[in-house]
């Protein structure tokens, strides 16, 4: 058996209306898994379960192994899993640089403010948004917010990144550009990721694809 970086056992999901059986999934480091299914079928709830945020309406029987360690019962803060939400959820009370500073990994947060700032500015330059560092989040366009949201998630150096319909809130032109930018960026930094969407065109051509199984209604 190959040593997969992310290993999800076969899982049974119990939702209010239905039950779903997900097959076992393995991901190599830097690999992308695309999960496709219609809206409202439980994909996002499953993603939050992977993150460690147990939803009261979802019961999952299954396990998550990350880098050889079973993290199923670990708290969110111990898992090292990052997420990009559909609505980005940037902190409205913080500026761009503050949104990124709060997401720095603990060992970087322990360093001098100058080091933190330099790291953030370097990353902002990579995504061509350094000029907006001091801007409030409310001053950014949709595309800029999307890029900051992805950067905020990866600046934390997660071992696995979850993307919950990250392009759904964007218009079609921007959506296309953001897809290209996001997958190129993830490939460059080599982060393993799981993306869920109801739209097949949201996925890059060469990735592992999982069609969300149809649920069985409760009797």
């Amino acid at each position, binding site marked *: 058996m190959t040593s997969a970086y992310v290993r999800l056992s076969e899982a049974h999901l119990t939702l209010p209306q239905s039950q779903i059986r997900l097959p076992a999934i393995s991901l190599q480091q830097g690999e992308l898994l695309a999960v496709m299914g219609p809206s409202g079928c439980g994909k996002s709830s499953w993603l939050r379960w992977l993150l460690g945020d147990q939803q009261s309406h979802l019961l999952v029987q299954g396990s998550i192994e990350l880098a050889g360690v079973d993290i199923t019962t670990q708290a969110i803060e111990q898992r090292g899993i990052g997420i990009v939400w559909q609505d980005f959820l940037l902190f409205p009370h913080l500026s761009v640089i503050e949104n990124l500073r709060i997401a720095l990994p603990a060992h970087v947060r322990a360093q001098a403010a100058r080091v933190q700032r330099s790291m953030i500015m370097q990353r902002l330059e990579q995504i061509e948004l350094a000029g907006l560092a001091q801007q409030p989040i409310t001053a950014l366009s949709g595309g800029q917010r999307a890029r900051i949201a992805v950067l905020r998630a990866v600046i*934390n150096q997660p071992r696995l990144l979850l993307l919950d319909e990250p392009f759904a809130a964007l218009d079609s032109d921007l959506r296309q550009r953001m897809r290209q930018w996001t997958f190129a960026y993830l490939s460059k930094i080599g982060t393993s990721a799981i993306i869920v969407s109801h739209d097949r065109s949201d996925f890059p051509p060469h990735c592992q694809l999982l069609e969300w199984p149809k649920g069985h209604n409760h009797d």
Partner: protein
Amino acid sequence: MITVSQWRTSVALVVLVLPWLLLAGYIGAQLLQQPQLLFSWLNYPGLSTMVSQSILIAVAIMLIAWLVILSVQPSTAGGCRLLQLIALPHLALAIGLLWLLAPYGWLWRLLPESWQLQFFDRQQLVSFVVILALKEIPFLWLMSQRALAQMPWQRWLLSGQSLGYSRQRSWWLLVMPELLRRMRLPLMIVVVYSLSVVDVALLAAPQTPAPLAVQVLQWQLDAEPTSQLFASYGAITLLLLAALAGLLILALEKLTIWQLLPRLKGTTVRLPVATLISLIGLLAALAIVAQSAALGWFYPQLLPSSWSLARWQQELPQLLQLFAHSAGLAMLVASISLIWVVVLLEWQRRGRISALMMWLLLPLLVPQLTLLLAWQQVFALLTSGAGGWHYGMALVAAQIPFSAAYVALILAPAERRFEQRYVTTLQSYGYGFWRSWWLAKRPLIKQPLLLAWVFAGLVSMAQYLPIVLMGGGRWPTLTSELVANSSGANNQLIAIYAVSQWLLALCFVVLLAWPQRITEGEQR
């Protein structure tokens, strides 16, 4: 094996439920103890008048409150002014209103003698009801506005109009039923308060005989064991009256929705409630301020013959001490209440505690006197011969449920609206839950948190019964001293204490003007 979180949840549940277990135990014990005395109590002279007065007061307040809710129209103005009036403690407001509106009062010195309201004086049923109503209208008005803000009433009106109803008729048929349902709880809070209030009643309500709550306190403070048992019977009667009031409110609501609202066609009179009430409050406040520095202010002089701050200077050391006591107690109670409710709401979010809001709001739906008498009995059993700090702790503990109830009332909508994924996001960056809460949630719900803390402080500051019953009179506050002084004849001294109580309340309200960089609008 019990986990830490299960252990914490169990402790929280016990703390939440314990006051009610004590109440149930108290009721059972008192009813079983010498049941023959129950008949003596039922034959107590004037009991039926006391009970009927309490019922009359509660029904009058219920009807006034019901009219206020029916006359509510969406408004964005006036909220701030009304909040300032809510900050005016009810006792200070009562004293100010009596000096303003009583037949010898300030207002009538400006107007012809024949215009005087002879019925509005100290120890008159009508003046007591009017004072209570004036104090409760701002609360009801603000709660109505808040309820409306949570309803898509504009869309409902449009739907009604698209079906051919006029705008006003759509208001009666579609918006008002829901508003009445949402105002059930505030209405109940107001009515239960009117049944159980003692401090304002001592000043403004008839005393021969007094409303039942006042008599219950007098029985309780009497050292005679029979009197204390009478107090228990009275307290249980207040509880029954509160339950009855709850049923009446439900009946009134259903009757209004089924019978009255479908027949209403006309428009409501748009009264500038906020302005009117604020004006009365301002005049009442002005009356006590003027009285506190007045020398020889006799009827029918419009202004005192001279002004003097000598009495203020004389009282200052005592006032400062009481100010510190009251402020310290209010801040401590408000802070503990806020932390307690925040923790419970977070645990509820994680599904660990169900029906939390019911437990938190219950102290407002049960006569305070009944609850305090039950707790006092247990406290007396546990701490016979204990030192002063025991009383201090009991006082703080007894105030927390009442302050926490208001905290819950204010925080619950903000809690429902808050997007908890902000906290989850920070947790995913490696922060612990409460650190994430502090960094993400606290700044985004800062305004409701501050409002809840201020309200909790105001509630604590205005409390009289816990000071008397749980504090054993060892921790006097501005409120308890004001009640003690208000039976005396020195108007200037009463006014000085009333102004001091009001100033303390204003200190809390001023905190609300703290620069609010983050608004709820930004959050959305």
